[in-house]
């Protein structure tokens, strides 16, 4: 059986039986070794195979009810969550999954029926709808921050009410500035969460476990940097290496051994591809900013057909320094503060300018996801900053989750038109 047909059957099963019990049973069934082996056997890339299997296993654990689950927003230091022995679950990423599974129409509608405004981004709306439909596992804790996304604090607070765990809702206030006072303020918040959650779990605070998690995160960071370095030379690789497919391990599972393995495998596979690469083949190098549509779409195929390749993504940037396991809270606070999406827009512009120079970028596609003001608000300055360097920027208005808010024909014309511009330079 091909991977496509297995995937199609899984998706159809979820679409036809959209309830928590069915999702649990399905995850349990496909997590069985023989089924996973069959599923994995038809995936050619070992990295893609590992990612798929790892994601299924992780979701099965989260849904199993055997472990305490923490909902978290995208840019948390997940080393803290994993170090506490909690299973992270990222509703925003699951919002993206609903698009891939073809159920976002239903989840978005459920959110609408429960007073979520159509002005709210669909990662949040779809997650909120899934929450209202009881499609998510019940969390024990909810942790979120205001880093980049202001909506997370509000959406996630609603989730805490839905699950009746308002006392286990933690909001991390990430300051605007990166200075000593901000570091202390943020570090103290992380430390408080660690000790308070440990207490609520009736566990002695296990700093050694947190240190191990941080060491794992450092190992992942090392391999991610290696992979990124290889990508500076590599342009001819399949789409599954697109970093936008690795958001869950890169952010939500940093600090697990599996993520270290994933990036170790990726580094090896990319190195092999680099050695085999046809050096005479030249493509236009595109940097992708923000996220991508997670439903089936043709954007990346259109780029490939038109001699363009996304060679790097803003989300693949290893922006943080190595963490110090002996100063876990300070290190994790530093990681949060060094995120280019924090504070002034100049931080983000500077970061993407550096990436563009490192990867010898020919053009930028900035996906302007509906309702994501932290990103879209900066589009003019981003465009102007690159235009000064004669690098074309396509601000592609669309929606990462709601296919009905992203007409395929219009997207095709814009992407093809942009590719034609890049190829004419």
């Amino acid at each position, binding site marked *: 059986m091909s991977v496509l047909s297995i995937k199609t059957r899984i998706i159809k099963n979820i679409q036809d039986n959209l309830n928590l019990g069915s999702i649990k049973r399905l995850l349990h069934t496909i997590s069985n070794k023989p089924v996973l082996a069959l599923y994995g056997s038809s995936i050619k890339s070992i990295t893609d195979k590992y990612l798929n299997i790892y994601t299924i296993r992780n979701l099965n654990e989260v849904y199993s009810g055997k472990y305490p689950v923490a909902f978290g927003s995208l840019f948390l230091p997940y080393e803290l969550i994993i170090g506490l022995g909690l299973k992270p679950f990222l509703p925003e990423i699951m919002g993206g999954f609903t698009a891939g599974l073809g159920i976002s129409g239903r989840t978005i509608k459920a959110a609408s029926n429960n007073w979520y405004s159509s002005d709210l981004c669909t990662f949040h709306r779809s997650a909120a709808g899934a929450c209202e439909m009881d499609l998510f596992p019940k969390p024990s804790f909810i942790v979120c921050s205001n880093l980049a996304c202001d909506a997370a604090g509000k959406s996630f607070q609603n989730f805490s009410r839905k699950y009746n765990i308002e006392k286990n809702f933690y909001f991390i206030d990430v300051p605007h500035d990166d200075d000593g006072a901000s570091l202390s303020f943020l570090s103290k918040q992380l430390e408080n969460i660690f000790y308070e959650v440990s207490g609520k779990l009736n566990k002695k605070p296990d700093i050694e476990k947190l240190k191990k998690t941080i060491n794992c995160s450092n190992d992942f960071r090392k391999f991610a940097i290696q992979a990124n370095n290889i990508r500076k030379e590599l342009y001819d690789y399949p789409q599954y290496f697109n970093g936008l497919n690795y958001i869950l391990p890169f952010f939500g599972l940093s600090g697990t051994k599996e993520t270290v393995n994933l990036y170790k495998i990726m580094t090896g596979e990319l190195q092999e591809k680099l050695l085999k690469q046809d050096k005479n083949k030249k493509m236009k190098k595109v940097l992708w900013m923000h996220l991508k549509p997670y439903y089936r779409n043709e954007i990346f195929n259109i780029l490939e057909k038109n001699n363009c390749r996304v060679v790097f993504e803003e989300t693949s940037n290893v922006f943080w320094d190595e963490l110090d396991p002996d100063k876990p809270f300070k290190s994790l606070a530093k990681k949060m503060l060094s995120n280019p999406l924090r504070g002034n827009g100049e931080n983000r512009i500077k970061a993407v300018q550096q990436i563009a120079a490192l990867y010898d970028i020919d053009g930028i596609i900035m996906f302007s996801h509906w309702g994501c003001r932290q990103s879209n608000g900066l589009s003019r300055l981003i465009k102007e900053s690159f235009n000064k360097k004669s690098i074309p920027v396509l601000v592609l*208005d669309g929606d990462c989750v709601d296919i009905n808010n992203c007409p395929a024909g*219009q997207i095709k*014309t*814009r992407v093809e*038109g942009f590719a*034609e511009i890049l190829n*004419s330079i």
Partner: protein
Amino acid sequence: MYTCGIDIGSVSTEALILDIDERKDYKILSYAIIKTGSDSKTAAEKSFKMALSEAKLNRNEINYIVATGYGRVIVEFANKNITEITCHASGVTLLFPDIITIIDIGGQDSKVIKIDRTSKKPIDFLMNDKCAAGTGRFLEVMAKTLEINLENFGEIFLSTKEKVDITSTCTVFAESEIVSLIGRGVAKEKIIKGLIYSIADRIISMVSRVGLEAPVCLTGGVAKNSGIASAIEEKLGVKLQIPFEPQITGALGAAYLAGKI
């Protein structure tokens, strides 16, 4: 060599045949403009046949065909598809070599294209969002609501001094607003003046985002409406260049680019 460009838009389809010599000098042999209707494939075929007939050529005498416009992918007999952005840019710069900014207002989309002064190739563009406001379709709906022939809008705009502001951007809401204005006894001429300014405002907003640089060319079926052209000129403060037939620039560019295949 003989080449053909076919531009399949949402409202109209244009086919244009060129005779291109070795120095890449060109001569327009014929063109046809027809309604696209519900079947874009048939419209492409029909317009091609009409253009062939006018040029007194057979199908097999055409060396290359390029299809453009939203329906470009369905033209099976085309050698290549190129977007309307590149084709419009090519067509306009053939007619007006110094043009820097192109405003194209079609049936269901409007776009602004910026041309590089040196290479004469497009370097930036912006298209309207998923909404018919500021396009030909918007005008058609309003003409029907007002029960006034769309062809008279230009003359009415130029001869009317006062206007009423149309505040709704959405075509459906604007239609309701107009019905309400008519109900209040507001003169239709003032409504038309307001409508045309509202379209011009949307176009100016797009031009501002891409960055206004003269000379500016206006193309697309809506360019035939003298009222729209005047309103845009007034708002931009620049004189617009308008091709002799503003609907064919996409097909012209496509035909010329076919000569480079």
